[in-house]
């Protein structure tokens, strides 16, 4: 892998963000609105005083973490779609660029977005709801890292499907992640799911992160089972999705469809 090529594409995407207000708003608008809804709801639930349950920490932590996952997946998919929309795939793939370098660059775009959103949401939730994300301490690092990697794996999956079926499948870039939400124990513990769904929940890396987050807020410690669970599940997904993407890329090259992805 060559850094100058990864850097070239990273800057290429940042040019767009630098100039485009709607693009920046797209990053900020949805997460902030969501935070406000859940923030006020949490305050209200806390006022009702349901014992042994701190709605603000449980729900706001979940909202912010969910958005990390969301940003990561979307960045990977949208950076890819951007090249298809602009008919630029051919141009970049006749340079010495490798597919792996392409994906590392989209990963970095995702990282930039995640940090931006993270700062905004953490600040806003602290100012408005006295919720301090940094109470999670060092556990925050593996948590965010795992969400980030899982988002990447899902983004790769969506991209592989878009590669195979063209832009008619681009709705996946936006709609796919929501399929994970009910089963990943985002706003409620795994134990709240019917037992046949609990097994499915533990197949999803982000489940371990959300469980772990609630654990830290409740007890101040984190069990290594949650960290290892997330890391292991992520590793498996990343291997599967990367392989899948490379296979789809080879398929598209065989079928001569690389330039026929639109429509």
């Amino acid at each position, binding site marked *: 892998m*060559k850094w*100058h*090529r990864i*850097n*070239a*594409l990273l*800057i*290429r995407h940042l*040019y*767009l963000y630098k100039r*485009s207000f709607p693009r920046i708003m797209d990053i900020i608008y949805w997460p902030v609105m969501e935070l406000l809804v859940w923030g006020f709801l949490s305050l209200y639930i806390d006022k009702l005083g349901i014992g042994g349950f701190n709605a603000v920490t449980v729900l706001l932590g979940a909202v912010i973490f969910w958005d990390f996952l969301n940003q990561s997946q979307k960045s990977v998919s949208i950076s890819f779609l*951007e*090249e298809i929309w*602009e*008919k*630029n795939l*051919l*141009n*970049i*793939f*006749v*340079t*010495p*660029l490798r597919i792996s370098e392409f994906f590392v660059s989209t990963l970095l775009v995702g990282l930039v977005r995640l940090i931006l959103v993270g700062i905004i949401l953490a600040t806003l939730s602290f100012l408005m709801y006295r919720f301090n994300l940094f109470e999670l301490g060092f556990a925050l690092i593996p948590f965010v890292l795992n969400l980030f990697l899982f988002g990447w794996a899902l983004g790769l999956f969506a991209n592989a499907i878009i590669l195979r079926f063209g832009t008619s499948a681009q709705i996946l870039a936006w709609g796919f992640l929501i399929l994970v939400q009910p089963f990943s124990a985002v706003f409620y513990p795994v134990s709240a799911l019917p037992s046949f769904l609990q097994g499915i929940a533990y197949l999803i890396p982000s489940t371990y992160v959300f469980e772990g987050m609630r654990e830290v807020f409740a007890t101040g410690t984190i069990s290594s089972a949650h960290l290892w669970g997330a890391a292991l599940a992520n590793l498996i997904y990343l291997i599967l999705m990367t392989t899948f993407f490379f296979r789809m890329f*080879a398929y598209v*090259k*065989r*079928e*001569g469809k*690389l*330039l026929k992805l639109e429509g």
Partner: protein
Amino acid sequence: MAPIIEVTHLVKEFGSVRAVDDLSFRVEEGTITGLLGPNGAGKTTTIQMLLDLITPTSGTIRILGKEYRSAREYILANLNFSSPYVSLPGNLKVHENLLTFGRLYGVLNLREQIDRLADFFEIREFMKKLTYNLSTGQLTRLNLTKALLNNPKLLLLDEPTASLDPDIADRTRQLLKRIQKERGVTILYTSHNMEEVEEICDKVIFIQRGRLKDEGTPEELVKKYGREDLNDVFLHIARNQTV
């Protein structure tokens, strides 16, 4: 001297369609070679195989003496491509596009290189414009600028003058000639415009239904088939008459 491109028994099948059928040819260093044929002859498929964007069914491609399997990075660093059918991102400014591709190719002294090419192609006055605001003629020059950023030894062009008005098409031809003369770049380009090919190509390769029909210099072919000009030769061959 070793050829810049050496294609041997190249085949591409899409399902039951044989888009390229046992095609062999060479492109010699420093020449402008035209890859000619009617619509659907397999020109684009061939160019895309030369760019490693389509995987051949069988046969070999050697570019600069090497194969993609073992030397992808070397080959791609030394060639470039342009076609009106692909575009540079419209939502980037002209200079942003050039910087991006210059970085992708790892061009040394990139800004000087861009300056030099900007003068050559007279694109300086719209460097700060968004790419989708350029006129067709400006876009053509920008595409050629991008195509020369990495000082390629080989330039592959898919119908570079298609969809251009006669004036801009002519200016483009003059630029291609200058690129070849002043920079010694080898050019392979597809077209079905015979006058154009006759004007600028040192050599032409005729293909039809994926197969090589004939090759030679324009004069040789005109003479061989006893025709007025290359256009006549093209019609003659394309209509499958015998000599």
